[in-house]
Structures are given as structure tokens and as C-alpha cells.
């Protein structure tokens, strides 16, 4: 389909709209607080890195970034590990209750986090897990395991079933076939699933905030505490906010062709 010669204007304007608030965040991170609060400048007067230095040298900032990365990493590993065999079962076999199970998974992805946070304190205290990395990692499985199962099921269904059968005839056992033959075939699917688990755990706020309160404070909880306090240090806040964009910005290039697929639970 031939597009009009001026078609590019629409996405260009839209991208401009997307970039404006991001630009403002990054610009603020290079300004001093005096400049932010007293003068309105479109471009920072001097590009000073003091705000970033403050974030990097402050033990509290470093620990909240580390906390978030640890529980996000744990969650990604757990989610993909349990989703792989489950997705294989859904893509290859029919079994008692499969449809209901698949639907029930979806309801967890759709459930409001606020509903589940209510009993978290009692539940995770009972297991001695409250305020630990693993608690947040487990709680994020609520929406990440369904996501991973749905995405992986989509990729696995694209692999012809004949490959499984040939492998079994060649004498492979199930674990040997799954790890040595099948997983390399859906490597890109595993990558995409892992990326989206990482992403959704990284962007989530409510569950992480209600499970990790003092020993393991997530980055967003610290941002919240500082941004709604009086006498806000806007420069440092903007610098820390800019740094939270980096994990997404680094990997986005690699998944650019799968973004729609991942956000739509593998159903595109």
C-alpha cells in the first residue's frame, strides 16, 4: 500500500510527544536544584553530573537499585523455569482440565495487585519470608508466570510436532530431547519471555512496595518516599529516575520485533 508523502508526520509528531516528558526528566537530572526551582530553562545551563554522583556515592541509593535488580532477576529465573514445561504441556497435549487451567492463568495476569496485597503481610510472615528478595520474586510470579506460559506456548506451537516424534524415535528421553533439541529451537521465545518477565517485575510498584518494607527497599519505594516528602531534591530524584530507564533502554533493541507479541501475551 502506497502511503501518502506526508505520512511520516504522524509518527514524528507522536514520537515528539513521547520524548518531551522524557527529555524534561533527563534535562532536570543535569540541573542544580537552584536552577530547577528558581529559573525556567529549556536546556540545562551547565551539564553538571553532581546529581548522578550523589546517587552513585550514596549507599542507600546503591542498595535500593541492587535490591530491585536481585528480586527482578530471581523472578525472571523462577518464572521462565516453571513456565517452560507447563507451556510445553499446553502446546503439545490435551489433558484433563487444560482449558480451565489456561484460563485460570489468565485471570491472575488480569487480577488487580491491590486485591492480593491485603493478606501479604500475614502470609509471607507465616513462612518467614516477609521483607526478603525471594518474597517479592515469588509474589511477582502472580502475573509473570502466566505471561511466560502464554508467550512460550505461542512460540512452541510454531515448532512442528514431527520434530518431537523424530527425536523420540531416535532414542532421546524427554529431558534430553527438551534441553538439547527443543530449547535451542525456541531460544528466541525464551529470550522474549525472560525479557518480559524482567520488564514487568521491574516496572511493578504496588506488590513490591507492600512486601519489602525495611530490609529490602525497592527503588520505586525510595523514589515514592522522596518525591512526596517536603523539600524534595528534584535533581537527585530526576537522576535516579533516569537511571531506572536504563534496563529497558539496553535490551529494547534486541526485542524490537517482539514487543507487540510480548505485551499481548504472545497472541499476535
Amino acid at each position: 500500500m502506497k502511503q501518502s508523502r506526508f505520512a511520516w508526520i504522524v509518527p514524528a509528531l507522536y514520537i515528539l510527544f513521547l520524548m518531551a516528558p522524557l527529555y524534561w526528566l533527563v534535562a532536570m537530572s543535569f540541573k542544580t536544584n537552584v536552577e530547577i526551582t528558581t529559573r525556567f530553562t529549556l536546556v540545562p545551563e551547565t551539564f553538571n553530573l553532581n546529581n548522578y554522583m550523589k546517587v552513585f556515592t550514596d549507599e542507600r541509593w546503591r542498595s535500593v537499585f541492587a535490591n530491585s535488580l536481585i528480586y527482578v532477576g530471581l523472578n525472571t529465573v523462577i518464572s521462565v523455569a516453571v513456565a517452560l514445561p507447563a507451556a510445553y504441556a499446553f502446546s503439545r497435549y490435551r489433558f484433563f482440565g487444560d482449558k480451565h487451567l489456561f484460563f485460570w492463568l489468565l485471570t491472575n495476569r488480569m487480577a488487580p495487585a491491590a486485591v492480593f496485597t491485603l493478606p501479604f503481610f500475614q502470609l509471607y510472615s507465616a513462612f518467614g519470608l516477609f521483607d526478603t528478595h525471594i518474597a517479592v520474586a515469588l509474589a511477582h510470579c502472580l502475573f509473570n508466570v502466566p505471561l511466560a506460559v502464554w508467550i512460550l506456548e505461542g512460540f512452541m506451537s510454531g515448532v512442528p510436532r514431527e520434530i518431537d516424534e523424530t527425536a523420540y524415535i531416535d532414542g532421546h528421553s524427554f529431558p534430553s530431547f527438551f534441553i538439547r533439541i527443543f530449547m535451542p529451537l525456541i531460544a528466541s521465545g525464551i529470550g522474549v519471555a525472560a525479557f518480559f518477565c524482567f520488564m514487568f517485575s521491574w516496572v511493578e510498584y504496588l506488590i513490591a512496595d507492600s512486601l519489602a518494607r525495611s530490609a529490602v527497599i525497592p527503588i520505586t519505594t525510595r523514589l515514592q518516599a522522596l518525591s512526596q516528602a517536603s523539600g524534595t531534591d528534584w535533581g537527585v530524584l530526576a537522576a535516579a529516575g533516569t537511571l531506572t530507564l536504563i534496563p529497558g533502554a539496553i535490551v529494547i533493541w534486541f526485542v524490537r520485533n517482539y514487543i507487540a507479541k510480548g505485551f499481548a501475551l504472545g497472541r499476535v
Partner: protein
Amino acid sequence: MKPVNHGAWFLVLPMLIIVAFTAVIPLMTVVNYSVQYVATNAQFHWVGDLWFREVLHSEKFWNALWRNLVFSGCILAIEIPLGVLIALNMPRKGWGVPVCLVLMALPLLVPWYVVGMIWQMFGRVDIGLMGVMLRDIGYNYEGDPIDAWFTLILMDVWHWTSLVALLAYAGLVSIPDAYYQAARIDGASKWSVFRYIQLPKMARVLTIAVLLRFMDSFMIFTEPFAVIAGGDPVFLSTELKQTVELGQKAAMSLIYFLIILLMSWIFYTVMTRDDGEPIGQGGAS
């Protein structure tokens, strides 16, 4: 047809245990709370459906529910047409494709609290770019509920329109060139190409987009919380967080969850309707 194999349950078992721990146990605890009254000495008393009647007669609950529905309605009315418009005009080949995909996806990857923080910094009338530009016409999201609504909707459009655009784009690029050639031979107008070729081909992805956007905006909490810190407008999740009485909170959670369950069922039916096999094929992309 896929073979029947009940042994497949062993493959789903690890996943089942994890999700049962993170979803079923909390939900059962909520059910338990919702039918009891917790006295100050931590004694539980059976109260039956008292909390449910209380919630269903609570004006605050209905207000939050309507407000949330109106919010979701506005979101859909803006984001879906805008997303389609952007997708129609996105480049189909060349260097513009990856540039568009990557830049448009950026807001989707920003932590939700930071999205709110970005818009707080962008919209404040003392330090924000948008706030300073609009303050001469009386804009101030901290004082005026209309301006707060405007800011929250604009923020959501900023955050999520790309999802609609990328989904619609994925639908558009899957249309074979032959369709367009046939349309050209028939002398079809731009409108009829859109109406009879592009729209039907996008119908499935757009349904997914509508339902995803509806569900996620229906349970929105973090972004408005970051911008207005629990002030007006109060959405359903905010109302839930602000309810103090444990039993009432639990009853409200369950009612909220049942609405979501109904919506998920519609979502599931629509998504698997066109698939040949019981559990969906991943589809082509």
C-alpha cells in the same frame, strides 16, 4: 489434533505450585476476611454477608467504580483510534521501522511509579515544562480536579498508546501485498481499502488491544498515586487501598475480582475463538 496425555499434569505441576502459593492462598485469605469481623483483640467473628451488603450500599464504592469506568472509556476512545492512525502512517520498510519501534516502545518500559513521577515533574506549574506553558490559561493539576483528570488521561495516552499502535502495526504488516494490488486494480478508494482490507485484518489484534487496555486501566493505581498521591480522582484500586476496615476491604476486593473475572472470560473467549485447536496457536508474527 493434539494427543490426549494426562501425564502432562506433571509438566504443569511446578507452575501450579508457584501460582497456587502466590494467588490461591492470598485469595482464600481474602475470602476468609470478607465474612468475618476482626475485633480489636484480634478475635474473629462470623458476620456472613454483612461486609458485602455494606460495600454494595457504599456510595464511595459506586463512585469509584463509575469513575474508573468513565476513565477506562476515555482511555479507549482516545488510544484506540490514535494508535490505529499512527500504525497506518508508520513506515513499512527502511531505517524508519526500527527507529519507530524502539522509540515508541520506550514509555512501555518505564517503571510505573517513574511514569507518574515524570508527569509530576512535567506538569507541575512551578518546575514542569507543560505546567509552566499552560499555567497562564489557569492549568494546575494540584488544585483543579478537571486538570487532574486531563493530566491523568494525557499520562495514560503517553504511557500506553504505543501498545495499541504496535499491535495494530503487527496486524497491518501481515497483510499480503496481493490484497493491495487487487484493490488498486478495482480502483478502490483509500477509505474502502481501510474499511474492507485493513480493518478486518486488524480486528483480532485490536480486540486484544481493547481488552488489554480496558483491564489495565480498570486496575490502575501506581501512576495516579505518583501524580496526585491518593487525592481526587479516586479510582477503584485507590479506594480499596484507602478502606481501613479489614472485612470491608476484603469484600470489596472480591467484588472487584469478580468483575475482573468476568472481563477475563470475555477476553479469553475472544482470543481463542479464531484458533483451530483448544489451546491457542501462537499465531503468525
